[in-house]
């Protein structure tokens, strides 16, 4: 039981790390541009497709990843120039509509280019297999690599946001965009950069799950909703909040699905517990969100306490 717990906790952290990578860009876009981007999940999907395509072309996962990341960045910047740039000044409803339309376009576009059938990517040879953790507990190396890469990215983001000039502008932009612009900063370029960065982070998350999940149209939709839950819990615009909330949501979701039925079994008979557990477990994170909102309507770490 303890071994299972360790395994599932690691899975939960790994899931949380992925959620963080998608949520980090999205929360910055929300916080700085005040833009609700429903199409952020599609960027995650596009990242996965890019890595699948480039890995197939080069025959090497790392080379594929090295091409996929700048490609995701450029794709994000292209979308910013074509569509998102026109949405910053609009109200949220226009943003919801335009990005909803974009989801339809990209999901269908992916289907046209790569077909509706799921694609798979081989786990690279160095990262395949598993390592013993404690006693008999084995854990796949690739999932550990995801956790390490995600933590490294989180650290990089932390340094970028808190200890660089660009990060200072980002934080200033999240607090008061017009003032930053008035002080002579090219806010348009800053916005484009944030958007491209967010697209690349989401694409990175997509690229890293490509070997362990199937790459298929619509794969970004479910992660988008979870990302929203993460952002709502963490507080819009807060990268730190997104990190804490992402790990929390990853753990609660993964552990809830495994241990929910087991815990319920002590209270009722086995089949009813299994049924109730399977039904309730997917709802746990939404209940968590509702509780957090009830206690703190602007999330755990509100970036703009006064604004929301």
């Amino acid at each position, binding site marked *: 039981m303890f071994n299972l717990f360790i395994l599932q906790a690691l899975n939960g952290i790994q899931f949380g790390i992925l959620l963080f990578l998608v949520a980090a860009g999205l929360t910055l876009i929300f916080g700085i541009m005040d833009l609700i981007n429903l199409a952020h999940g599609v960027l995650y999907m596009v990242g996965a497709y890019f890595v699948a395509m480039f890995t197939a072309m080069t025959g090497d996962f790392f080379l594929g990843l090295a091409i996929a990341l700048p490609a995701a960045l450029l794709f994000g910047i292209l979308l910013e120039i074509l569509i998102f740039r026109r949405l910053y000044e609009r109200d*949220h*409803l226009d943003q919801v509509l*335009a990005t909803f*339309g974009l989801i339809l376009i990209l999901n*269908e576009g992916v289907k046209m280019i790569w077909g509706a059938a799921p694609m798979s990517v081989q786990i690279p040879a160095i990262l395949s297999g598993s390592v013993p953790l404690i006693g008999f507990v084995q854990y796949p190396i690739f999932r550990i690599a995801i956790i390490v890469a995600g933590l490294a990215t989180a650290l990089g983001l932390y340094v970028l946001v808190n200890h660089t000039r660009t990060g200072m502008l980002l934080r200033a932009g999240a607090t008061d965009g017009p003032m930053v612009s008035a002080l002579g900063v090219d806010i348009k370029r800053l916005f484009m950069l944030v958007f491209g960065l967010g697209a690349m982070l989401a694409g990175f998350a997509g690229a890293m799950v490509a070997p362990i999940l199937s790459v298929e149209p619509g794969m970004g939709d479910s992660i988008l909703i979870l990302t929203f839950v993460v952002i*709502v819990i963490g507080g819009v615009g807060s990268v730190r909040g997104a990190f804490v909330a992402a790990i929390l949501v990853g753990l609660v979701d993964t552990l809830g699905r495994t241990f929910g039925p087991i815990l319920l079994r002590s209270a009722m008979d086995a089949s009813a517990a299994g049924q109730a557990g*399977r039904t309730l477990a997917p*709802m746990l994170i939404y209940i968590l969100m*509702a509780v957090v*909102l009830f206690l703190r309507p602007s999330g755990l770490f509100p970036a703009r306490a006064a604004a929301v």
Partner: protein
Amino acid sequence: MTLAASDTKDDAAEPAIENRRGFGIVSREGAAVAATILFAALALLPLLASAIDDPFLIVTATRIMVFALAALALDLVLGFGAMVSFGHAAFLGIGAYSVAILSSHGVEDILVQTLVALGTASLFALITGAISLRTSGVYFIMITLAFGQMAYFFMISLSAYGGDDGMTLWNRSTVLGSDVLESDLVLFYVVLAALVLAFFALRAVVGSRFGRVLRGTRDNATRMRAIGFSPYSYQLTAYVMSGAIAALAGVFLANQTEFVSPAYMNWQRSGELIVMVVIGGMGTLVGPIAGAIALLLAEEWLANLWEHYKLVLGVLIVCLALFTRGGIAGAARRLFRGGRHGG
């Protein structure tokens, strides 16, 4: 002097937001006339269907009217309350599942099923609305979306009632023991009657004191608070009413398709409902009905033309959002007024 003063007052009375919402787009009387013509045309549709010998026309029209009813419900919160609910498909699903689940336990009367559907949807709306309305703006959109998905995943994992596969209805609901709804024509007129009733009921609601407070909150919540109203309870009441009407649409949807699945509650369905309301012109009540007709007909038509029709639909929606503020009704209005208020 007085002239100038009244000019500024006029400008203030029509804030930017009014360009896309409210009776500014279509006058109250104009909306009622347009709706009456629309309803009369729909009532005569079966004659056309029998004249060209196309019974499928009635089935399609019934389906469109079901979604028109749901879009009408959404307009109450979206158009009159400025609450962008991205989870309205959940209410549609609650209505549909009320029929399917009760019917699988032998309760087939539509009145009982509708009561249960309205009760469940109201309760769901009351709980989720009470939490969602503590926030606003982006938060509200994300939270309603999340609650909608919660309902969706709940039904997917509820394997006792079909889970992911959905449930087939062995027969349609009965009305006081009679199976008149088995006839597509009867169902058509029942749904039409519900749509007409809902339209005029909502028109009365929107015109009432309650509706004026709701519209006032939409235009300027701070002012409403300043003059002593507490918008929260008004918004929550509107949210619950809207959810209940959408659930009624779900009851009809289950009867029309004789099949219920979690796909009805998918978030893309919620998105489509928003598109319907916005295409037609939000805050007009007749707009969402026209929008539902336009979107579903366009979908049907495009789907026949090209396998990847969703791409075209997506492009249309993006253009709609980027270039036509206020949907078709808003574009038409700017055309007539020549951009007097700067569009």
